């Protein structure tokens, strides 16, 4: 490997950062999914793992001296990789970056792609948090969503994860899906909560352009708006009975079990996204890796890569953030969280009072009952959560 060439962009970033690893493979694409993922044969998967490991090493050089506080491997389905591949990836991460001793290391797992052996592999590789894509505990609805697993497969997966020693597990659930009644949702929610995972993400289905769901959106029997909002509003109430607290629009956690990695996204911690199509944010610049598999593989298959991470041609869509952009992002992302944003942090970060910059907007949405200010923090009200886009878009620069 060529000698380390420090990237100026990285050097400017502060003492700690997060790491995201993208595994763009899955067994089968779900009807609602708009993430960059597809099925691929064993050959392609192996080529990809090798390329990813090379990117990990390149990025590691660039992040020399930066503490990594969280790692998150998502997809796709990272666990479609075999145990050996998973081991190699995490070995590379450990070798290339300075991970904090208590770093949160999460892997997304989909039921039907892991057995106990693979879970143990993950555990041994240093993974200490799992995010299990459950979506529903209703076989009828799982079929509708195009998932490969059923209720039993999920339950076996969850218990196996516990047996493998995972003490920090998150479950993804989805409300507002076609043919789902209010009671269907409540049943799934309670059953999931009774399993006692440390964290639950409960998403309202979004029809994303380009997905099969989007194409047949006119024939989907979606819950009506009143029902859908009741599902959302009651989620918070029901989960609080089990000791979960909502801390973001769609995220609920037991005490001290918030997903630190995701909280980092909402509070402006820099991150390196490695792998096909992954996004990075280095404090003042955002960019994204190419989502063209051959281009990605070609670059990292070269043994003599002429440019350091992140200046290679595979890092594209580079966007330098102006002060106005950075302030808008701080507010928009921060407001996603229950606790909102701190006026003091805003001042220390941008050297301006938030009221000076956004006074009129804050006042307007305050009057409308969508924003509230208390103890130096600004946050969305319950109604504001449901109408957050309406509020947030006003903060964007002209």
């Amino acid at each position, binding site marked *: 490997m060529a000698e380390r060439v420090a990237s100026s962009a990285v050097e400017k970033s502060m003492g700690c950062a997060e790491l995201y690893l993208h595994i763009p493979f899955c067994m089968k694409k779900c009807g609602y999914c708009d993430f960059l993922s597809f099925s691929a044969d064993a050959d392609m998967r192996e080529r990809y793992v090798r390329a990813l490991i090379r990117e990990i090493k390149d990025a590691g050089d660039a992040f020399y001296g930066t503490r990594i506080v969280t790692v998150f491997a998502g997809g796709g389905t990272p666990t479609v990789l075999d145990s050996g591949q998973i081991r190699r990836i995490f070995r590379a991460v450990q070798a290339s970056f300075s991970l904090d001793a208590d770093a949160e290391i999460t892997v997304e797992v989909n039921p039907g792609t892991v057995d106990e052996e693979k879970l143990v592999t993950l555990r041994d590789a240093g993974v200490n948090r799992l995010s299990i894509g459950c979506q529903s505990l209703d076989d009828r609805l799982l079929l509708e969503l195009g998932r490969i697993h059923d209720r039993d497969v999920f339950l076996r997966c969850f218990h196996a994860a516990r047996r493998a020693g995972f003490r920090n597990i998150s479950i993804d659930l989805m409300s507002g899906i076609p043919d789902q009644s209010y009671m269907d949702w409540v049943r799934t929610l309670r059953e999931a909560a009774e399993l006692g995972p440390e964290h639950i993400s409960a998403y309202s289905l979004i029809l994303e352009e380009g997905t099969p769901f989007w194409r047949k959106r006119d024939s989907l029997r979606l819950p009506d708006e009143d029902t859908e909002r009741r599902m959302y509003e009651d989620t918070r109430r029901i989960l609080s009975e089990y000791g979960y607290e909502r801390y973001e629009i769609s995220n609920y956690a037991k005490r001290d079990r918030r997903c630190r990695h995701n909280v980092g996204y909402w509070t402006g911690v820099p991150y390196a996204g490695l792998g096909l199509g992954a996004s990075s944010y280095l404090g003042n610049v955002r960019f994204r890796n190419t989502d063209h598999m051959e281009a990605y593989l070609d670059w990292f298959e070269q043994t003599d890569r002429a440019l350091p991470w992140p200046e290679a041609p595979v890092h594209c869509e580079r966007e330098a953030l102006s002060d106005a952009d950075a302030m808008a992002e701080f507010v928009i992302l921060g407001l996603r969280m229950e606790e909102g944003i701190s006026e003091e942090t805003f001042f220390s970060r941008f050297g301006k009072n938030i009221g000076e910059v956004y006074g009129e907007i804050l006042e307007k949405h305050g009057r409308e009952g969508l924003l509230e200010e208390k103890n130096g923090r600004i946050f969305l009200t319950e109604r504001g959560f449901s*109408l957050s886009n*309406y509020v947030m878009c006003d903060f964007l620069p002209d």
Partner: protein
Amino acid sequence: MSSIDQNKIRNFCIIAHIDHGKSTLADRIIEKTGLLTSREMQSQVLDNMDLERERGITIKAQAVRTIYRAKDGEEYIFNMIDTPGHVDFNYEVSRSLAACDGALLVVDATQGVEAQTLGNVYLAMDHNLDVYPVINKIDLPSADPQGVKDEIEEIIGIEAQDAPEISAKTGENVDAVLEEIVQKIAPPEGDVKAPLKALIFDSLYDAYKGVIISVRVMEGTVRRGTKIRMMATGAVEEVVEVGYFGAGRLIPCDELEAGMVGYITASIKDVSSTRVGDTVTDEERPCAKALPGYKKVTPMVYCGLYPEDSAKYPELQDALEKLQLNDASLFFEPETSAALGFGFRIGCLGLLHLDIIQERLEREYGLDLVTTSPGVIYKVHKTDGSVIALSNPSNLPDPSEIDFMEEPIVKADIMVTSEYVGQVMQLCEERRGEYLGMDYLDQTRAELHYHMPLNEIIYDFFDALKSRSRGYASLDYELTGYQRSDLVKLDILVNKELVDALSFIVFEGSAYTRGRKMCEKLKEEIPRQLFDIPIQAAVGSKIIARETVKALRKDVLAKCYGGDISRKKKLLEKQKEGKKRMRQVGSVEIPKDAFMNVLKLDDK
């Protein structure tokens, strides 16, 4: 310089139904002919033209002079005069026709004769023009030139068997058209020594030269220094320059003689003193009688026009003044609306003319505009015996002061294939048409004749006609007069507040249907807001229809993680852009398009 031989001049126009290929043929003719006569090429003309070029003057004139060397070896001057192709501009068309000695009728070999084909042919025949058909688009697989020729003979009653079969698109056989022009179109007549008598068929304003008047000289000669008088408006000016219209540029010359088509400039500041149809004569040696046919055109359709950004009001005023320099049939006066602020009431010839004005204001002057319901001029007879011409519904007097009202009526001619006659008749009846009769043009096609209120025509009639006839029907209409009618003012209330810009005058019998449709449409147009918004239609104090825009409940992105931030930000940016296109009316945000869109009611 000696006179031009009148026998070598051909003044003609090309008439056609829309999309039958008129402009394409005109372009081909220009391509295949020359800009200058061989005599001009040796004279100073070129120098003058270079001067024009230097000053960057290009003119989009309604006439083009080109030089054609015919098969007989002689050079012919072609003056090709363009005619606006829409019923809104019938008067302008008639004046352009009056400047010609013959007409080429372009008929699409795949479509055959259509309503405006007939309308234009009849108009040409009214001006005693001989009409020579040209069958176009023979390159298309579905072309049926022989069938179309038979149809022309059968329906129009003019000889068509020898008509050139061409493709203006590919250029095929266009030479035959050029020869046809030489051989068939009559050369002009007129005494070059008689007192000057020239027809204005167009006038346009140019920043350097002032008004450029397009004329056909009927009698006499005009040259630089001639003191001319516009016989109808009485304006007198001294000629600064005369010349011809080359393709896209002016070619100055010494004089224009009887039989020629060209331009005159005389430092005239605006087109209102050089109206289309007026006669130009020599102030010192005037002709005895003006040319027939002049009339002062009056606007038929009115609507409110407001700058989207109220700070742009002075710019809109400036732009309208500039447009008016060039468009004598554009009328405007300031008005104010509670909903839209300061703006103007625009009067124009028809909806197309309105579209053109709006497009020019938006494109050439960079203005974003909000328009209100187009309406016509109603005659309001008050109980005190006075009559007011009402162009803005907001000015309707209190019902207690109104004795009765009258509305303008047109004669509409609709050509349609026989299978759709039923649907079209039904549409005309829904629109209060009074059936006058029907002519079968051949076994498959008929022309329907109706008397119909103009306000029914400007209200989406054309779109409805197209949709009910699968695009086969075509329409031609002319104003015939006013007729007493039961009319009421329909008001729209949004969140209990009257939106004056949405008020319009409607036939009492249609008020309920129109009101209901307006409410339904507005419901679609107004985005959900933080509270329920009632939308009501009212006649006087009586609510006749109601819809509700339910309060917005959900507008949230469930997921936003590291990889999504840029994309989600773009979604929010789009939403913010959308907010900017809103106009605050009372407590409600209404998209600016809504004012226009609610008028385009679906015909279902």
